[in-house]
Each structure stands twice: as structure tokens, then as C-alpha cells.
């Protein structure tokens, strides 16, 4: 799926309420600081994580998140995987188009979250669920 790297010591959280979304942010923040991501990169990653966690809750009907450090031999980074068993995304291409958003405006959409990270992988099946994996590397 994604380009190399083993995740060390993944932490797993359930996403069932908006308090959980807060917990996801706190977890990602801590991880980002631990690998010394720059402030701007940290902000981008936590923002993306917050969005994807909220998507998992609101559109995926709840799910899980796993996050941890990755090392591809040359750089270290953070990888976060969101998974739900929700309705899935019927038209993935449309969902990934710039500016596309469901619900009331200002939603970042998947394309927005994608711009904030270095690697973005999504697999989804209608009726089965969605899994999104994002990675941000240290410069």
C-alpha cells in the first residue's frame, strides 16, 4: 500500500464520540512533537488528523485510528491509519476532487487533507467501509 517503513509501537484509539476526536488530536500532536516535526508540519498533520477523525465519526459511523512513528531508513515520520466499517465512498474520484465537500460548507474534504500530508492512501468499498492511511515525513 504505502511506500515502505515499519510502524513502531502503534497506538490505537476508538473513534466513537467527539471527545475521541479530541483524543486523536492530542495523540497526533504528541507523536509529531516526538519526531520533531517542524511547527508548520505539525500543524498540518494535526489538522489533517482532526478532519479525518471527524470524517470517520460523522460519515463512517465511528471507527478506529492507529498512529505511530515510521522509519524508512532515510527519514522518520508519523503514519496514521483511519478505518471504519461505514457506507464507504461511492464515487472516490469525485470525493478527491479539489473543493469537493459534502455537508455544510467549509469541510476540508479528502483532497484538502491530502494536500497537508506527504503520503495519502485510501481504500473504500460501498457497504464495507473505508480505510485511509496518511504519512508525514520529517524534512
Amino acid at each position: 500500500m504505502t511506500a515502505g517503513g515499519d510502524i513502531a509501537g502503534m497506538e490505537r484509539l476508538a473513534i466513537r464520540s467527539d471527545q475521541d476526536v479530541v483524543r486523536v488530536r492530542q495523540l497526533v500532536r504528541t507523536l509529531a512533537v516526538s519526531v520533531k516535526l517542524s511547527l508548520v508540519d505539525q500543524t498540518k498533520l494535526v489538522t489533517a488528523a482532526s478532519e479525518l477523525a471527524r470524517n470517520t465519526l460523522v460519515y463512517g459511523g465511528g471507527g478506529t485510528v492507529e498512529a505511530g512513528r515510521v522509519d524508512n531508513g532515510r527519514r522518520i515520520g508519523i503514519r496514521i491509519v483511519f478505518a471504519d466499517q461505514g457506507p464507504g465512498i461511492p464515487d472516490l474520484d469525485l470525493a478527491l476532487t479539489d473543493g469537493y465537500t459534502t455537508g455544510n460548507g467549509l469541510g476540508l474534504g479528502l483532497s484538502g487533507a491530502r494536500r497537508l500530508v506527504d503520503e495519502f492512501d485510501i481504500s473504500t468499498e460501498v457497504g464495507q467501509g473505508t480505510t485511509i492511511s496518511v504519512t508525514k515525513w520529517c524534512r
Partner: protein
Amino acid sequence: MERVPVLKIGDILLVSILIDMEDQVALQLQEDLADRIVETGCHGVIIDISALDIVDSFVGRTLATIASVSRVLDAETVVVGMRPAVAITLVELGLSLPGIRTALNVELGMELLARERVDDFIDDLIGDDDQDDADEAVVAAS
């Protein structure tokens, strides 16, 4: 459940948004603010987001809602204290905050609100004239 405090400073209500604010707290804030605007008759709302290290779509929606509701109640909103990293992230997303005015800090936010009040006054006086004329009139009158 914690509540975000709403402070009254003259004709302005000041709110400082907390980091990691939960949905319920945000909704309560919207209600509290609307109540206070009506109760005090204030014409300005300043939302201080300097404690926020990220602004996601939820925060964006909350700010937009507050601004809209306030406007209906004849109060203008200014968001202050956005951190540079947050601004850079929003730009990367291609996201602007439509219909939301911003200022660097509370002081500048209050100046902005005061200017807006004068503009409204001048508009009423002069009518739909060129903004430049209005500016000239104001400079000349001062």
C-alpha cells in the same frame, strides 16, 4: 462541562476560544453569545483564537455560525490571534474564512470594529458614494 467565558468591554463582547474545545462546549458558546448580545445590546464581538494551534473545518464552521448569528443581531464579529502556522495551513488547503473579518490582536480588532461603526454612520449620512470620498470626508473632518 466547561463553558467559555464571555467578557463585556464597552460595546464589545470578547470570547477566548480554548484549545481542544469539544462540540458541546462550542454549541453552548454559540448560545451564550447570542444571549449576551441581545442582553447587552453590544454591537461587536471579538473571538480570540490565539490559543488554537489548529483550525479545522469544525472550528471554521463554529466561527462562521457565530459571525452569521451575530450579524443578524446587529453585531459584527472579528476573529483575532490566528497563529502563523494555522494561516499557512489554511492557505495550503485553499481555505479562506468567507465573511469573517480578522485582525492580529484584540486591540486591532477593537479598532476595526470602531471603524466599521463609523463607516456605517458615514454611509447613512453620505449615501452610496465612493468609498474614497467617504475616506476624504473623514480625514478632512478630523
